[in-house]
């Protein structure tokens, strides 16, 4: 099938689909009608962010005993460096005060502690692969079959894209899923004549689809981003780093793409990670600015959008000898969206004390990432058990009641 043809069909189909959904979208309760077109952005924090210091178990004395130099102070409105109360047990890192905390208060953010995988290697790379492939840890792996690629095939009207320099494993095997280096969008120098000659050279080769799709997406993205810059910037201080990426992603997911992936690195904090301020605080603040910026840019469509923030594993519950943390197990995942029933800590939980640590070292995993995604997919896309099995072969979906 000619790819251009598929693209234009999809785009037309999607616009028609959106028009039909308009009344429900306006009400912000798209979820009442499972199976509707909707948007998903998966944000992967590569390097295993120190979840216990971002979504903080402030009621746990064991937390304060385990982290003599790293612990964040219990919530105290008078103290700017203290944690921000989420509920009786949990509080948020103060670096997220202006960004994620307001979303949580509006019910547009939820946190899932004790989340992760059954991969026990404590290897970043192995566990990232485990998550991206979504195939289970025992069986031999098929590296050409990522779970988001299988999702592309299982749902209708998917317009997938990776906002990464390279196509991530999770989209491998999904046909020509485009990727775009989102912070380096420039005016293309290869002109239309050269593009068509190059496309011709690739006909019949394994890269034919990627090349054809690439030229199409290249032009679409360039136009979307430059048009937006012209109309919106007006001399404002332009955002940098992840915030710039995330804002651009918001623009592109408004109406061009509906299934996105982006990753953010730099979380492997073995040494001097800081507490209320310092290295990790700066990283998480930048992430928060990005996610809140995305929500702002995507506009009313935020109501039909789900953003899931994941990481390969958590870190050791106790700080190490260098004011840092080593590789652990359970993490805390985030679910955000304009239409979710958030403002809560969701999923299975246990007390945060030494007795409940996994291998007397880490958070246990009580909420499997596939069960979490599966539960979301069921509600978002109206997938039945059989359709879900195409994405995650053998996992019971878990409904967290967010949609």
């Amino acid at each position: 099938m000619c790819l251009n043809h598929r693209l234009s069909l999809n785009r037309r189909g999607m616009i028609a689909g959106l028009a039909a959904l308009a009344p429900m979208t306006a009400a912000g309760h798209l979820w009442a009608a499972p199976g509707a077109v909707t948007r998903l952005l998966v944000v992967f924090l590569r390097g295993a962010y120190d979840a216990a210091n971002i979504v903080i178990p402030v009621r746990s004395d064991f937390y304060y005993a385990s982290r003599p130099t790293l612990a964040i102070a219990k919530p105290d409105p008078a103290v700017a460096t203290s944690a921000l109360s989420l509920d009786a047990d949990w509080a948020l890192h103060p670096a997220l005060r202006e960004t994620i905390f307001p979303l949580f208060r509006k019910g547009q953010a939820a946190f899932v502690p004790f989340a992760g995988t059954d991969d026990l290697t404590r290897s970043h790379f192995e566990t990232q692969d485990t998550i991206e492939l979504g195939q289970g840890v025992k069986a031999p792996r098929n590296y050409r079959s990522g779970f988001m690629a299988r999702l592309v095939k299982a749902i209708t009207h998917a317009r997938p894209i990776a906002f990464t320099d390279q196509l991530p494993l999770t989209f491998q095997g999904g046909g020509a899923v485009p990727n775009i280096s989102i912070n380096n969008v420039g005016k293309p120098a290869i002109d239309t004549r050269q593009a068509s000659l190059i496309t011709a050279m690739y006909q019949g080769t394994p890269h034919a689809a990627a090349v054809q799709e690439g030229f199409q997406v290249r032009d679409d993205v360039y136009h979307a981003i430059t048009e937006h810059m012209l109309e919106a910037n007006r001399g404002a201080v332009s955002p940098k780093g992840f915030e710039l990426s995330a804002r651009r992603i918001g623009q592109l997911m408004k109406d061009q793409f509906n299934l996105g992936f982006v990753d953010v690195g730099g979380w492997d904090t073995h040494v001097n990670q800081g507490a209320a301020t310092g290295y990790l605080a700066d990283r998480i603040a930048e992430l928060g600015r990005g996610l809140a910026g995305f929500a702002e840019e995507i506009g009313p469509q935020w109501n039909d959008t789900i953003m899931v923030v994941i990481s390969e594993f958590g870190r050791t519950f106790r700080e190490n000898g260098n004011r840092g943390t080593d590789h652990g197990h359970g993490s805390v995942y985030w679910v955000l969206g304009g239409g979710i029933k958030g403002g809560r800590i969701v999923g299975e939980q246990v007390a945060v004390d030494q007795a409940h640590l996994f291998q007397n070292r880490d958070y246990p995993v009580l909420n499997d990432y596939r069960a979490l995604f599966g539960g979301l997919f069921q509600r978002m896309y109206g997938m039945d058990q059989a359709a879900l099995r195409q994405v995650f072969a053998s996992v019971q979906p878990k409904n967290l009641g967010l949609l």
Partner: protein
Amino acid sequence: MLPRRQVIALFACVPATAFVVPGPADAVPLPTPQDLAMVDTVTWGANQSTMTAFLSLGREKWLQAQLHPPAEESLPQAAQQQIDALPVTRTSALALATAFSALGRVAGVLTNADEKAATLKLNQEGMSDIARQAAAADILHALYSPDQLRERMTWFWFNHFNVHQYKANIRLFVGDYERNAIRKHALGHFRDLLMATLRHLAMLQYLDNADNAVGHINENYAREIMELHTMGVGSGYTQADVQELARILTGAGIDLNPEDPKLKPELQPLLVRDGAFEFNPARHDFGDKVFLGKTIRGRGFAEIEQALDILCSNPATAQHISREIAIYFVSDDPPKALTDRMAQTFMRTHGDIASILDTLFHSPEFAAAEGTRFKDPVRYVLSAVRLAYDDKVILNTGPILNWLNRLAEGLYNHQTPDGYAMVSSAWDSSGQMMTRFEIARQIGSNSSGLFKLPGPNGVEEPAFPLLQNGLYFDAMQSTLSATTRAALDKATSPQDWNTLFLSSPEFMQ
């Protein structure tokens, strides 16, 4: 396709100095497609001068010369002079660390905020400049060293024992790391290479072993040694082995102080110093350990030697390293029969890298795959520049470093210790292909700053990328598909032809 004479006429507008005149075609036999594929695979990219060397020595002699190069390098003078002009190539990691830590101390005691900021800025700029010099030297080696296989393996091992320049002050050490820890052992023994990386400032900083001490355990490096550097993940070691190796590694760190640390008399004989490397027995855990089923008696640095012996003689290490090398040269999923034979060579020779490569290059699996490996960005860019300018030595490596960064495979720029992915699926996505075509246009259209001396008032020498050269007509042209030829025939200028040729499916592998 234009007849050759017409093509040459097209180039008439280009200054004559830009040409690399192809040698007379009848002096040596014409290269076969297999010759071309062999040279293209073993080197950073075939060009006329390398092909001439290959043809005059013959396949086997040339290959043995590549596998066993002289310790002393012999780069062309124009490249060696540029390298020698870079101070970093003559300065040890210890000297750089000492100089910059002095600068840091100055900044620390300054009370005037402006002066302090200016000093810190100077410090940062200085470090970046040192890393740029190291990168320039590396690119010149890769492009012009006659010992091309050593250069390809230098990149491979750097990536295998990856460090990231932007962590702490590692920018100061990447040059020395590459020169003294990696290149020196790139075709030598694996254990020497492993030990050289273990003792290097860059690695001690990057994976935090400099902070690993008794009572302050940091298991970062211990884990990556087993997972990435030797045995490979899932090969049978446990979390307990990681923790035991971390204990074995306690005390292996950095000391810039010329005076020895104050030690109790009984510990003094156990102190090890070598440049900036120090094994400090006062920071070591002297308890006994059980590592991979073997008891290691607590006794100091000898424990580390013993642990590396255990790791390097483990069959999982032989398998893991062999497979990585085969992925680099052969395919995303190399045949097990091939990697098994390479692993046997590893075990038989105690990790002699040249012997493992010899097994690989003489295998039928290698011959069958020759010329089909999809190029990663480094190979893509370097092979284009090598073909375009052959032995006309570039004057500025900046454009190459920028292209590699844009293609997401920048030198010393991979943040995590796994190094860049070597499977083609990491590099052949739509976005990657688009960036590649843009860079094909830059390389193909003009000299793109490669012959402009660095600095604001740098003079630019005339040069033009001559891709339709002797090697093209002798060997490459016949390998092009009909569709590629048809597209090239529609080129409207030499610049356009170059852009299309460098964008062609054939040039991607």
